[in-house]
């Protein structure tokens, strides 16, 4: 955390710094379907890159390759310029990749704290799980994320969609992620909670965390992201700087699959 901290993501890109993550030429297919077809995207520290596209475009599949949930058929992942081998979610964690899945990936029968710390429980000196300590931490972080959250001792199956989403967000940001993947993080949230997530993204960005944000809301993407990559039918339509495009440009990329620069040319 030295001088480089003060550079913006934009400067870094201009200077040709090594990106935090590079997904290069990734292919994933399910049976005969090419869910992700030779897609390349990258991400710099402190940058938010939006991933856009119609339903089934392959956004979730692409980021699941990075989070270790899926294995790619071909392609390459680089973290800080070095080739990264990610074959399961445990590997992804070693690269400080944290993910908020579209499906949230919560164990419904456990309470919020147990889900927050799942796989990384706090333990007592004897090695037993320390539920009180975890509940205390959980109360702290939820306070800054969803102030109306009260249900700490119920299983998360008893929570509302938005409350569940808050738990999933809390889990991804608690463990000092360097690379954060958010797959439609605000889909179930109310306006106030959505605003809090937007503020959270700004804060994480300022800390130098790189974020992939999948969102269907073009306005939110325009507001939060530095760049946006648009996918259609598994292929990358193009990647644009948010400053260079309008909402309508993005929409036409998503719907028509045409890159504005190509259209202009």
């Amino acid at each position: 955390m030295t001088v480089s901290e003060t550079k913006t993501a934009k400067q870094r890109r201009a200077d040709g710094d090594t990106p935090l993550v590079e997904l290069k030429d990734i292919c994933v297919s399910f049976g005969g379907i090419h869910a992700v077809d030779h897609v390349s995207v990258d991400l710099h520290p402190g940058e938010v890159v939006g991933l856009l596209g119609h339903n089934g475009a392959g956004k979730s599949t692409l980021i699941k390759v990075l989070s270790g949930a899926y294995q790619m058929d071909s392609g390459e992942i680089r973290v800080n310029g070095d080739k990264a081998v990610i074959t399961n979610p445990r590997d992804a964690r070693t690269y400080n990749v944290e993910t908020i899945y579209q499906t949230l990936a919560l164990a419904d029968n456990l309470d919020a704290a147990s889900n927050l710390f799942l796989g990384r429980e706090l333990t007592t000196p004897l090695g037993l799980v320390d539920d009180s300590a975890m509940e205390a931490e959980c109360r702290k972080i939820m306070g800054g994320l969803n102030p109306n959250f009260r249900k700490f001792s119920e299983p998360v199956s008893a929570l509302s969609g938005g409350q569940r989403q808050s738990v999933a967000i809390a889990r991804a940001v608690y463990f000092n992620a360097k690379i954060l993947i958010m797959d439609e993080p605000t889909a179930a949230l109310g306006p106030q909670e959505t605003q809090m997530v937007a503020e959270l993204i700004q804060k994480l960005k300022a800390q130098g965390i790189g974020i992939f944000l999948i969102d269907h809301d073009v306005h939110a993407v325009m507001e939060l992201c530095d760049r946006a990559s648009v996918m259609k039918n598994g292929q990358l339509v193009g990647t644009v700087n948010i400053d260079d495009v309008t909402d309508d440009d993005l929409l036409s990329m998503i719907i028509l699959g045409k890159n504005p620069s190509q259209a202009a040319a």
Partner: protein
Amino acid sequence: MTETTSQPIPSQPKRSLFQQLELDVRLLGMIGAFVILCIGFNILTDGRFLSPRNLFNLTIQTVSVAIMATGMVFVIVMRHIDLSVGGVLAVSSAVMALVQTKFLPTYLGLGFDNPLTWIIAIAIGLSIGTLIGAFQGWLIGYQSVPAFIVTLGGFLIWRNYGWLFTSGQTIGPLDKNFLVLGGVNGTMGEATSWTIGIVAVGISLWAMVASRRGRIQHGFPAKPAWAEGIVMGIVTCTILGFVWILNSYNIPTRKLQRMFEAKGEVMPEGLEVGYGLPISVLILIATAIVMTLVARRTRLGRYIFATGGNPDAAELSGINTRLLTVKVFAIMGFLCALSAVVASARLQNHTNDIGTLDELRVIAAAVIGGTALAGGAGTIYGAILGALVMQSLQSGMAMVGVDAPLQNIVVGSVLVLAVWMDIQYRKRTGTKL
């Protein structure tokens, strides 16, 4: 991420008496049904059912199934099933019987009733059970063969290995020291039993106080002091009542005389000595405590429940669910072998049909005890209580003189009824699992 604004703790809304006590309503329902069952049988048998003698026998007959039922809770919570437990019990029992009656005394020349024999035999038996369980778990976890198929195969395979090893013969009598673990031949006596009971009460109360103090320290809601007091009272009465019952079953005078003669002493006239806690019951209690600790306070247990609740989420959280499956089935195998120790010691022989139908009893015990077949929910104490209910039902009907076919019909119906009531209860209270 450090946020200083912690969640405020809401003031408690008004709640019913049961809620304030935070007692498990399901558990209470099951205890209620059990009490009614006992009283009913007691009336039908003119007070024989609740005699110390019968309660003692009931307890030692329950141990073997109850030990395995605690492991079945983990298996079912993980959304699997184990149909091979009776078979694993049989083969472990066969091997232990051969080791202690043939292999060690004659081939290795240790002689009969050597103090090492029982330890070696048990160590071998437990290893075999664990290995079989781990192997089945590997097929299920790493090779993705469904647990139903692997253990259905195991159901046929393991018992018949036992048959092959023993040529189908009854092996016995077993080692004298080994028999102590079976129940009636190994009890703690009255004084020691009271001591154990009092220590157990002390530890339970201490644990409850410590947990309460922890909650208050962290500023979490805790139940009112009076409610805590009532629960403590119930726990104390249950433990001491249990010891009292087992202590009040006296060793028959004839047997006592023989015990004195064996020591070369003369039995004082009119002496009465209670059996006290059987060692097999202590083994069950130790198993229950360890398994409960594993379920609630270890990562292993947390992962078992998480995987049962949502296997994908568990995997995405970095849990190695394949290895976890191996561990759970290895634990199950270990417990089958432990049950084999208790069961064969109780019967004083290894018989070819030992543990027959135990898979059904064990699954029924776990399910009656509230383990959800959909996975993700279940308790150790529930399974033990389930085993006790099943055993009481069976012994009670036998004492009343119900015909064998009718006994089975009733047991089968009770299993279905128990699960149906559980589903109704969960619907009513809105718990999804």
